[in-house]
C-alpha cells in the first residue's frame, strides 16, 4: 500500500494497541504500570485523533471494503470512550478486588482484551459486506466471554461465562443462518447489492430478517432473548459488566442500524411493526424485572435491558433522525452508565454491591450521593440531565414517522422506570445509615473521573454547542 488516508489511522492504531499492551508483558513484570500507561495514552490518542477527522465527508471507502462513514466515526468515539472509561474503572480491581471477590491479575491482557472487543465494534460499523460484518461481531463478542471469566477463582464468574458462551454461540448460529438466507436471497454478500435486491422482497428475505433479529436480539438483550443478561452482569467482574453494558450494546445497536438503513432499507416500512413490538415488549419486561432487584448489578442489567428497548424506538424514524438519536443516546448512556458503575465500584470495594450498602450515603459522603443521584436521574431520563435529551431524541425519531402508540407506551413506561431508579436514590438519601457499614475511601483518580462524568452528564444536554457542532456537518 503506497498511501494510507488519515481517516484510517485511528483504526490501525486501535488494531496495533492490544498487541502492544499485551506484548509489553514480555518485557515487564505483572504488577508493572507500563502496560496500563501504554493503553491509556493509546486510547486517549485515538479518541483525540477521531475528533480531528472532519465530518461531512459522507462515506469514505478504504480499499473498497472498509467504510468510514460519519456515523461510523461518531460510533468509534462512543466505543473508544467506553474503552477508556472501562480501563480506568478496572484499574482498582487489580489492586484490591471488589464486591467481596479477590483482586484480579494480568492487567495487561485484560486491557488488551477490551481493546480487541472495541476493535470488533469498529469492524462492524466499517463493514461493507456480510463477511466483514460477521467477523466484526465475533471479534467484539469473543473477548467478552474471556473477560467475564477473568476472575479465575470466582465460581459465579465462571458460571456466568459458561452461560454467556452457550447463549452467545446459539445467537451466532442464528446470525450466520440469517446471513446465509440473505446471501441466498440476493446472491451477493455486498451491502449495496443486497439493498438493490431487497426492493423486491420475497419470503427468503423475511426468514433472513427473522433469524437476524433473533441473533442480534441476544446481543442487544431484546425480548425474549434477554434472560442471560442478569446472570452475566451479576457474575462478571464489575468493570466487565460496565464494558459489557456499553460496548457490547453499542456494537449490537450499530449492527442493527447498519442493517436497517443499509441492506434492509427498502423494506424498512414493513419491518417497522416488528421493531416497535420488540421495543415495546423489551422495555416493558426490562422495567418490570428491575422493580424487585436488591443487588446493584442485577438491577443495572434490567435497567440496560429496558434501555435497549428505548433505543429500538429510534429505528422507527428515517436514517438521519435515527442515527442522530442513537449516537446522542449512546454517548449519554455511556457516560451515565459509567458514572453509575464508578459509584457502585467505590461502594463495592468496601462493601457488598447491594442496595443496603447505599444506606445513609447522603449523610456519609454527600458528593458521592449527588453523583449517584445524577447518574440515576440521567438514566431515568429526567431533565436537565443528558439522559433526558437522549430519550427525547429517541422518541422524537420514533414520533417523526407517526408511531405515537409506541411513544406513548414508552413515556408511560418511563414512569415505571423512574420508580426503580428512585429506589436506588431512596437507599442513598432517605434511609438511615447503618453503623457497621465500612467507611468509603476514594482514590484521586476515582474522584476526578466521578467529577468529570457528573459534570458531563449535567452539561451535555443543556449546552447546545456540544451537540450542535457534532451534528451540524453530519451527513448520513
Amino acid at each position, binding site marked *: 500500500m503506497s498511501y494510507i488516508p488519515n481517516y484510517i489511522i485511528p483504526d490501525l492504531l486501535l488494531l496495533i494497541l492490544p498487541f502492544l499492551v499485551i506484548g509489553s508483558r514480555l518485557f515487564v513484570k505483572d504488577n508493572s504500570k507500563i502496560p496500563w500507561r501504554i493503553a491509556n495514552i493509546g486510547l486517549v490518542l485515538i479518541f483525540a485523533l477521531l475528533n480531528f477527522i472532519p465530518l461531512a465527508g459522507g462515506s469514505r471507502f478504504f480499499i473498497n471494503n472498509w467504510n468510514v462513514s460519519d456515523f461510523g466515526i461518531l460510533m468509534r468515539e462512543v466505543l473508544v470512550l467506553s474503552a477508556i472509561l472501562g480501563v480506568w474503572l478496572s484499574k482498582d480491581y487489580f489492586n484490591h478486588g471488589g464486591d467481596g471477590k479477590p483482586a484480579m491479575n494480568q492487567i495487561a491482557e485484560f486491557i488488551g482484551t477490551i481493546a480487541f472487543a472495541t476493535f470488533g465494534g469498529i469492524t462492524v460499523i466499517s463493514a461493507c459486506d456480510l463477511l466483514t460484518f460477521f467477523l466484526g461481531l465475533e471479534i467484539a463478542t469473543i473477548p467478552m466471554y474471556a473477560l467475564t471469566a477473568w476472575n479465575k477463582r470466582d465460581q459465579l464468574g465462571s458460571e456466568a461465562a459458561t452461560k454467556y458462551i452457550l447463549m452467545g454461540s446459539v445467537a451466532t448460529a442464528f446470525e450466520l443462518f440469517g446471513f446465509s438466507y440473505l446471501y441466498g436471497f440476493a446472491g451477493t454478500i455486498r451491502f449495496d447489492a443486497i439493498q438493490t435486491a431487497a426492493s423486491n422482497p420475497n419470503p427468503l428475505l423475511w426468514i433472513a430478517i427473522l433469524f437476524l433479529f433473533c441473533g442480534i436480539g441476544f446481543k442487544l438483550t431484546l425480548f425474549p432473548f434477554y434472560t442471560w443478561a442478569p446472570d452475566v452482569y451479576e457474575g462478571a467482574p464489575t468493570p466487565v459488566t460496565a464494558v459489557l453494558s456499553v460496548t457490547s450494546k453499542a456494537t449490537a445497536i450499530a449492527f442493527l442500524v447498519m442493517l436497517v438503513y443499509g441492506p434492509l432499507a427498502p423494506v424498512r416500512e414493513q419491518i417497522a411493526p416488528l421493531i416497535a413490538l420488540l421495543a415495546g415488549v423489551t422495555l416493558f419486561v426490562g422495567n418490570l424485572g428491575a422493580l424487585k432487584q436488591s443487588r446493584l448489578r442485577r438491577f443495572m442489567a434490567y435497567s440496560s435491558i429496558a434501555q435497549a428497548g428505548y433505543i429500538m424506538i429510534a429505528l422507527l424514524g428515517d436514517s438521519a433522525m435515527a442515527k*442522530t438519536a442513537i449516537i*446522542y443516546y449512546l454517548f449519554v448512556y455511556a457516560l451515565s452508565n459509567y458514572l453509575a458503575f464508578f459509584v457502585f465500584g467505590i461502594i463495592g470495594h468496601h462493601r457488598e454491591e447491594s442496595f443496603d450498602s447505599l444506606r445513609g450515603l*447522603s*449523610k456519609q459522603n*454527600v458528593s458521592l450521593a*449527588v453523583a449517584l*443521584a445524577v447518574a440515576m*436521574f440521567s438514566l431515568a431520563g*429526567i*431533565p*436537565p*440531565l443528558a439522559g*433526558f*435529551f437522549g430519550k*427525547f*431524541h429517541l*422518541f*422524537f425519531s420514533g*414520533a*417523526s414517522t*407517526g408511531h*405515537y402508540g409506541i*411513544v*406513548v407506551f414508552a*413515556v*408511560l413506561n*418511563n*414512569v415505571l422506570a*423512574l*420508580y426503580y431508579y*428512585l429506589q436506588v*436514590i*431512596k437507599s442513598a*438519601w*432517605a*434511609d438511615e445509615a447503618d453503623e457497621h457499614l465500612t467507611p468509603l475511601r476514594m482514590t484521586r483518580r476515582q474522584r476526578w473521573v466521578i467529577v468529570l462524568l457528573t459534570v458531563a452528564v449535567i452539561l451535555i444536554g*443543556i449546552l*447546545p454547542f456540544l*451537540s*450542535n457542532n457534532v*451534528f*451540524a456537518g453530519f451527513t448520513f
Partner: protein
Amino acid sequence: MDTLLFNLIWLIPLFTVLVCAPIPGAKAKLIKGIHGVSATLVLLLVAYLTYRLYTLSGTPANEAAAPLLLQFFTDIPWIAALNAHYMVGADGLNMFLLLLTAVIVWAGVFVSWEIKGNQKVFFALIQMLATSVYGVFMSMDLVLFFVFYEMEALCMYLMIAGYGSGRKDYGGKKLTLTLAFGSSMILATLFGLYFESGIHSWSIMELSKITIPMDFQMWAFPLMFMGFAVSSSLFPFHFWSPDGHASAPTAVSMLAAGVMMKMGAYGCLRIAMFLMPEAAKIWLPWVVAFLIFNVVLGPFIALRHKDLKYITAYSSISHLGLIFLGLAAITPVGLRGAALQMISHGFLTGLFFATIGMIYERTHTRDITQMGGIMRKMPFLGVGFVIAGFAGLGLPGFSGFVAESTIFIGAFGQESTLTRIVTILAILSITTTAVYILQTANRMLHGNMPAKYETLTDGCFREKLIIVVLVACLLLIGIFPGWISNMLDQSIAPIFAKISAATAPVNGIGG
C-alpha cells in the same frame, strides 16, 4: 436591558448554586447568606420587571411575539437536531406568576433557615426548584418548557426523601411518580403537536397561528389536559398531594402547593387550551363534572382530617378546583378569575404552610387534637394562621374574595346548566370551608393548653417578616385588584380570542 434582566431571573438561582458548590458544607452561615441575598435579589428583580411590564403593557415586543403580546422576548436557536429554541417572554399572566414564585421562593429560603441535615445541598435544591419554576413560566418554546417542567421531579424527590418527615420515601415517591405520569402524557402530546401541526415548530406563538388537525386534537387534548391536571391535583389525580405535602419539609410544601400546582393550570390555559381550542370546547364541559369532587367534596374531607398539613392539602385541592372552574367556563371573566385565583392561592397557601411549619417546629406535632391554647404562647403565628384561613374562605379585603367572586361570576356567565349547577355548589361549599377553618383554628389556638407548651416562644423576627410579607401580598391584591386584573385581562384577551374564534365541528370528530 430589561430583556437581559428578564433572563437573569432563572439564571441567578442557578448561578448561586454554582457559587456555593466549592464552599465547604461546614460554613453553613456563609452559604445561607449567599442564598438569602440571591433570593432577595431575584424578588427585587421580578418586582422591578413587573413594574416595567405595567408601563409597557399591551404591546408586543416585536413581530414574533405578537400573538401573545409578549415583552422581554428572547429567541435563540438552542438544540439544532431537535429544532428547539431558547424562547422566553413575559405577559401579564406569567409575570404575576413569576412574582408569586419569587415571593414564595424568598419565603421558602428564609423559612428553612434552621433546617436539619446538609444545609448546603438543601439550599442548592431549593434554588434548582426555583430555576425550574421560573423557567416553566418564562418559556415560550415547548421543549424548553418541558425541560423546566420535569426538572421539578428531580429536586422534589431529593428534598422530600432527604429532609422530610414521617413517611418521607412513600410521600416523595407518590408525588414524584404521579407528577412524572402527568408529564409523560404531556411529552407524548408535545411530539404530536410538533409533527401533526405540519409546521415543525415548538414555538407556542407559531403553533397558535395555525389550526391543529381536528382528529389529532380530539385525542391529544384530553391527554395533555390530564397531564397538566395531575400537577394541579384535579380529581381523580389529587391523591399525591396530601401525602406529598405531609412528608415534605415546609419550604417544599410552600413551593409545591403555592407555585408548582399552578404550573398545571397555567399549562392548561397557555398550551392545551390555547393551541387546541376546538377540542377544548368539546372536552371542557366534561372537566366541569369532575370538578364537583374537588370543589364540593374537598372541603368535607378536610373537615375529617386531624393533621394540619392534610387539612391544608385538601383545602388546596378545593381551591385549585375553582381555578379549573374558571378555565372550563371559557368566558373572559372566568379566565381572569382563574388567573387571579392562581396568584391569590399561591400567597395564601404559602402563608398557610409557612405558619404550619413554624408551629410544627415548636410543638413537634401537626395533630390538632393534641394542640390547644397556642394563641396564648404564639399570638403572632396564630394570627398569621387565622389570616390565611380567612383569606382562604374568601373574606372580603383579602385576595381570595376577589379571585373567587370573579370565578363565580365568570362561571355563571357560561350558559350550560351543568356549569351553573357546579357554580352554585361551589358557592355553597364555602360554608364547609368556613366550618373546617374555624374548627381547626378553634381547636388549635384556643382551649386548654398542654403543660409542655409553657416554654414555647412566638416567632422570631425572621419568621414574623415572612408572615408580614405574605399577608401584605394578600391584602394588596384584595384591596387594589384593579391594576392586576387589567394586566391579566390584556394578556388573556388573545387566548380568549383564539378560543372563542374556534368553531368546533358539529360531529365532534373529523371536522
